[in-house]
């Protein structure tokens, strides 16, 4: 929630929303570079389990993270809705695989609440907050914290 606390005025932040399983998530639009349709992902031998592989993005090699595995969800078959969201996080450009991309929404800082937590839950520290929208709860993700510092270094070295 640091980012939310830092924004102490009630400014508006734009979020790109995507779906995984039955829930809707949001990441800051400023960190999103582009959204790609599913393409061939080349597996990397010896890569961590949360790395699906690499793609060639206009001559640049981009690592693709399996967001489902990262979030502890079961694997599913990719379909027409599957997207790779290219984001910039912790000085890395990576792709995150999601079930579908929904829309861009505007949220006031005051509309973002801390998610109720159980214990310290280190593994969920990437959850920045939640916001009620259209009778649904939008889970806001801090992409920078999607991986630990060591994991970001590991991804950068692939």
């Amino acid at each position, binding site marked *: 929630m640091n980012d939310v606390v830092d924004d102490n005025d009630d400014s508006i932040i734009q979020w790109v929303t995507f779906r995984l399983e039955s829930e809707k998530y949001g990441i800051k639009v400023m960190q999103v570079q582009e959204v790609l349709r599913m393409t061939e992902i080349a597996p990397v031998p010896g890569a961590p389990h949360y790395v699906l592989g690499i793609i060639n993005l206009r001559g640049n090699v981009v690592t693709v993270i399996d967001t489902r595995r990262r979030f502890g969800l079961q694997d599913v078959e990719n379909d027409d809705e599957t997207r790779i969201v290219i984001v910039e996080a912790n000085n890395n450009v990576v792709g995150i695989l999601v079930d579908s991309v929904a829309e861009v929404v505007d949220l006031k800082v005051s509309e973002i609440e801390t998610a*109720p937590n159980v214990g310290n839950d280190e593994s*969920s520290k990437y959850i920045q907050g939640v916001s009620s929208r259209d009778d649904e709860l939008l889970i806001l993700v801090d992409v920078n914290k999607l991986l630990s510092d060591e994991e970001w270094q590991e991804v950068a070295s692939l």
Partner: protein
Amino acid sequence: MASNNSNTLVDEKLAVSLFLDSLLREPEVETEVVTAEIKPVVEVPAVEVVAEIKVEAKPIVDIPVEVVVETKVEIPVETAVVNEAVEKEETTESIIPEWANEPFQVLLFEVAGIKLAVPLIELSSVIEWHDGVTEMPGHADFYMGILQHLDYKIAVIDTARMILPTNKLEQLIDDDPRERVNHIVLIDDYRWGLACDKIGEVITLKPDEVRWRTSKTSRGWLAGTVIEHMCALLNSEGFSAMLEKGQSS
């Protein structure tokens, strides 16, 4: 046939009674620690550490350097042992909440075949289960998600996974709590929602009907057991404290 059914009924009652009894007991290892003879004074030999470092610089000047470090550490343990003994003696008394000095009402509910009771004084509300519980990634498996109710965002807990002892959790391996639960019991001023399988009736209990837990019992969620109703009485405060720390039974 009739006698068989009767036997089964007695067996089930006995099993539940034994289970409730076991909730108030601690593993044998801990009991042994309490009854062990404690000597007031323990002598610990002084620890002596000697480190020897030799450095030689060759290329320009040949100066041998020798450093010897000697450290002696003595650890007095007498006070610590005596204090520990006193603390262990104090932990065997029953913990009876203030509201239980006179008869009190409780709501009965069931979780994975176990009957629980929550005191009405600690109950915020009871609502029906619905699909509006948002699953949150990366949490303990007993955290089912967030429920929006009135102005609250309530953390919904799979009560069965919280309270069942480790050796009984096996029965939940293939269990999907979303198919099992049908109500949510809200406690701690709408902070936590305890998913439950079945809601029962409201009954009145007298303080002496409850076998109150002692602080020796590690199950913080348990206030005591009520043999007459074959149920475990919840300690909401203890339950909240466990959830804050992310502990299960």
